[in-house]
């Protein structure tokens, strides 16, 4: 009996011990509000900086959601948010509403909208990687594409 309890504790500690080399913001992104700054991968276009800020403000104005991350790449713009716990029953409706409003207000942009924690986490991680000057635009665009593919994956 005692040995089996030790084995279970060992497994749980083993699982918990996997957390290494993670920076702080993304580490807590699933638990608390991180409110990351909007990211513009192609930094040469100054006007787009206002665009991503506008997009973030537009989404943050919804009372059903509480944390928004926006990443604008070469072609696609990723918008991820967290839905308040009691509003999670209406997640699909909220997603539809947000997508419709964004498409109407910014018709030139191609939006990918998600409320998935994993996509949010990856967006925050990408944001952190972008702080590093060695992280190239090409790599960032590739990563953004991978995140969007992950979002569209069903099973």
């Amino acid at each position: 009996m005692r040995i089996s309890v030790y084995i279970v504790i060992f497994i749980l500690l083993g699982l918990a011990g996997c957390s290494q080399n993670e920076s702080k913001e993304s580490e807590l992104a699933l638990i608390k509000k991180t409110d990351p700054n909007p990211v513009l991968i192609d930094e040469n276009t100054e006007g787009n900086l206002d665009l991503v800020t506008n997009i973030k403000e537009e989404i943050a104005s919804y009372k059903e959601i509480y944390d928004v991350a926006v990443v604008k790449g070469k072609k696609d713009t990723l918008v991820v948010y967290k839905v308040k716990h009691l509003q999670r029953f209406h997640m699909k409706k909220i997603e539809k509403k947000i997508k419709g409003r964004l498409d109407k207000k910014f018709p030139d942009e191609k939006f990918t909208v998600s409320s998935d924690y994993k996509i949010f986490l990856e967006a925050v991680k990408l944001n952190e990687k972008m702080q590093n000057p060695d992280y190239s635009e090409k790599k960032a665009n590739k990563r953004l594409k991978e995140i969007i593919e992950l979002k569209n994956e069903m099973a």
Partner: protein
Amino acid sequence: MADKKKKNLTPAQQKYQGLQQKHELKRPVLKNCIKAFWVGGLICTIGQAVTYFYIYFFNFTEQTAGNPTVATMVFFSMLLTGFGIYDHLGQYAGAGSAVPVTGFGNAVISAAIEHRTEGFVLGVGGNMFKLAGAVILFGVFSAFVVALIKTILIQWGVL
């Protein structure tokens, strides 16, 4: 039905039944519910932690993390059944340990352990799904019915 049966009893039998009811221990329904609630809730919390583990450390989204989580929880309960811990948990929590998916793992392994003495093929192989077989059958059937309804609703444009 019960009243009809009671009418057929002799006075002595009825007197005995009254006496028996007087001394019978009452089922602690509320206490059992509370136990089932907190143990079932604890199992679900562990399941949620496993989901977060898959989301955090692997390439699973909230939508896709469900499958490996279920597999992991069933595997955990199979291990605990083998070690003899899940039996105590089942005795304490009742439905709280049987209703979550971990109860499925327990049903498979406990039947396998019980029939181990009858040999590996006819004993373990033949009886392993004695309890869990019903879960699989009705699970698959109800999934089929729900999928059928969903397909029809999508075809009609309701969903």
